[in-house]
């Protein structure tokens, strides 16, 4: 039997999946506390002990791979020139690498910006600016400011190639770790974020794992490959495209509802689906991730209510305003609090619904009518996801007790807002076994079992229609 161990160092739990590669099935799951901030080995050993108990001994694993979102995740600051151009491209690259973008800076860094960046204490800085052959003054200015600062984090340089190599040399001379990669926008309007994503991932493997103390448990696994959001993204990509020689699910949306953020990944070109619509703005990455830092089920439950409105939450949960407020206070005072009563469960479901509603609306593009002399013209910004056929929910809250179909229905266009380009009539699934991250970790080395594993984890929830995917008890 050929087995793999997939580890997720989360911010609350250390989660394990032991997988049989030949059968593409989960043998058992183990869980321990997250102890990355103290000693990572404690939580991992607890989780391994849990797994061992369930399996009556651990099999020998062919692969032991890990992802991590613990210790604040991969905190990144991105810097570019024009906010809507190289600055946005750099931000997309960082998000695509699974980072938590804690700060975004455009144009010339000021002394106040230097101070702010130091406060943000990023794990990695991504420095962009200028198309190849374009503006080089600003990225040179910004690199010089970083070089003169006390910042110790690695810097990935992904800007104007005229000067990029020199800037790496300059930064290295001042004792910084600097990595050269391709420009995130080599020519105007051309998005080239994959090389920067790869460079960030390599820095993560080489340096961040050690900086976060995760390498203390290095003997217990082979490699910590990527931040967990990047693993989920790889899982999403594999599900959509399928392993080579096999077709996947096609265009899809993955919504990861978490305690601190709600992430949305779309795998879809997102080009206008209607004829005559003009696309505006930067080209969109086919695999795109957005992170809503104000839509976390636990760390910012209150801001979800603020964003969607108390009335909407009351209507969905059937709770009185005072009850909603009382439960919100309880959650705020203890972010690890799980729903105990029917009322708390009802509020949780309403919060999850609202988080999905807002996160997908922000992720999806919009279309607006521009009046011209020749009549009205439709102009699209962002991705057109109306024809996306699959919506997949993942993450803790969906797996625990709530009605996933109700929550995921929030991702579907409701017709009230014709400007929003959300999926019109998708199939709804939950990642019942929480296996997307595991499939993402395995995607590069064992694509076929990884794909089958992810497919088996999908549970269709929009109706009773039979489907090839079946429930996988984890």
């Amino acid at each position, binding site marked *: 039997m050929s087995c793999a161990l997939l580890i997720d160092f989360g911010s609350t739990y250390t989660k394990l999946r032991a997988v049989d590669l030949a059968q593409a099935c989960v043998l058992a799951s183990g869980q321990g506390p997250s102890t990355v901030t103290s000693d990572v080995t404690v939580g991992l050993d607890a989780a391994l002990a849990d797994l061992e108990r369930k399996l009556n001994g651990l099999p020998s694993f062919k692969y032991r791979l890990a992802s991590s979102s613990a210790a604040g995740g991969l905190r990144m600051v991105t810097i570019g020139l024009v906010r809507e151009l*190289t600055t946005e491209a750099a931000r997309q690259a960082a998000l695509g690498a699974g980072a938590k973008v804690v700060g975004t800076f455009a144009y010339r860094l000021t002394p106040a910006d230097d101070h702010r960046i130091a406060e943000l204490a990023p794990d990695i800085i991504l420095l962009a600016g200028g198309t190849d052959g374009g503006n080089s003054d600003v990225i040179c200015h910004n690199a010089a400011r970083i070089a003169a600062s006390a910042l110790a984090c690695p810097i990935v340089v992904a800007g104007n190639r005229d000067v990029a190599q020199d800037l790496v040399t300059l930064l290295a001379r001042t004792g910084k770790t600097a990595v050269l990669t391709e420009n995130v926008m080599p020519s105007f309007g051309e998005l080239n974020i994959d090389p920067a994503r790869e460079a960030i991932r390599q820095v993560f493997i080489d340096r961040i794992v050690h900086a976060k103390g995760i390498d203390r448990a290095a003997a217990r696994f082979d490699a910590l490959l990527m931040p967990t959001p990047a693993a989920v993204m790889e899982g999403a990509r594999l599900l959509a495209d399928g392993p080579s020689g096999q077709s996947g699910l096609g265009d899809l949306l993955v919504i990861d509802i978490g305690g601190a953020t709600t992430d949305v990944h779309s795998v879809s070109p997102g080009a206008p689906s209607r004829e005559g619509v003009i696309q505006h703005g930067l080209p969109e990455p086919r695999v795109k991730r957005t992170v809503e830092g104000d839509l976390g089920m636990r760390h910012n439950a209150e801001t979800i209510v603020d964003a969607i409105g108390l009335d909407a939450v009351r209507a969905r949960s059937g709770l009185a305003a005072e009850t909603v407020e009382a439960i919100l206070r309880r959650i705020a005072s203890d972010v690890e609090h799980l729903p105990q009563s029917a009322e708390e469960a009802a509020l949780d479901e309403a919060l999850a619904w609202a988080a999905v509603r807002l996160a997908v609306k922000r992720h999806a593009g919009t279309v607006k009518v521009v009046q011209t002399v020749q009549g009205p*013209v439709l102009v699209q910004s962002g991705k057109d996801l109306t024809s996306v056929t699959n919506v997949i929910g993942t993450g803790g809250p969906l797996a625990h007790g709530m009605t996933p179909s109700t929550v995921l229905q929030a991702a579907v266009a409701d017709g009230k807002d014709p400007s929003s380009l959300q999926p019109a009539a998708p199939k709804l699934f939950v990642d019942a076994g929480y296996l997307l991250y595991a499939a993402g970790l395995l995607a590069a080395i064992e694509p076929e079992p990884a794909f089958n594993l992810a497919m088996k984890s999908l549970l269709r929830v929009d109706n009773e229609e039979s489907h090839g995917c079946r429930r996988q008890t984890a």
Partner: protein
Amino acid sequence: MTQPANPNEVQAVGSARNRMLVTGVIGSDTHIVGNRILSLALEKAGFRVVSLGALTPASDFIKAAVETAADAILVSSLYGQGELDCRGFRDMCIEAGLDDLLLYVGGNLVVGKRSWEETEKTYLNMGFDRAFAPGTRTPDVIRLLNEDFAARAQGQPIARVKA
């Protein structure tokens, strides 16, 4: 056997070669064909061209010029509203730190009956270095770009009239 030089083909020469130009149709204007022909001709002549296409807000020209360190912006306007769309264009450039950018504008720049002299003056007063009347051929634009970049290389300002 050498082919006789085509009088319609003018190349970028001297300091004009490889200059970065930003083109586009400004405002709520969808007339893209002329702008596309111009962009292709400029590219063929040896310029580097970023074409923003139709329906381009003034601010997008500036953003593209900043990022690409453009040497000139060529604005097209065909639907008669150019005067409104182009108002403050030079100021926006200065605001964005693009101090000595060459600014051209061309197309059907006004509606109604106004002499070309009057129209040209309007746009030059707005800070454009040159305004082009309907029916201008691309080689003429390239010739003037050559002249203006050469003048600039010698430290001469290009804006001609400030009435």
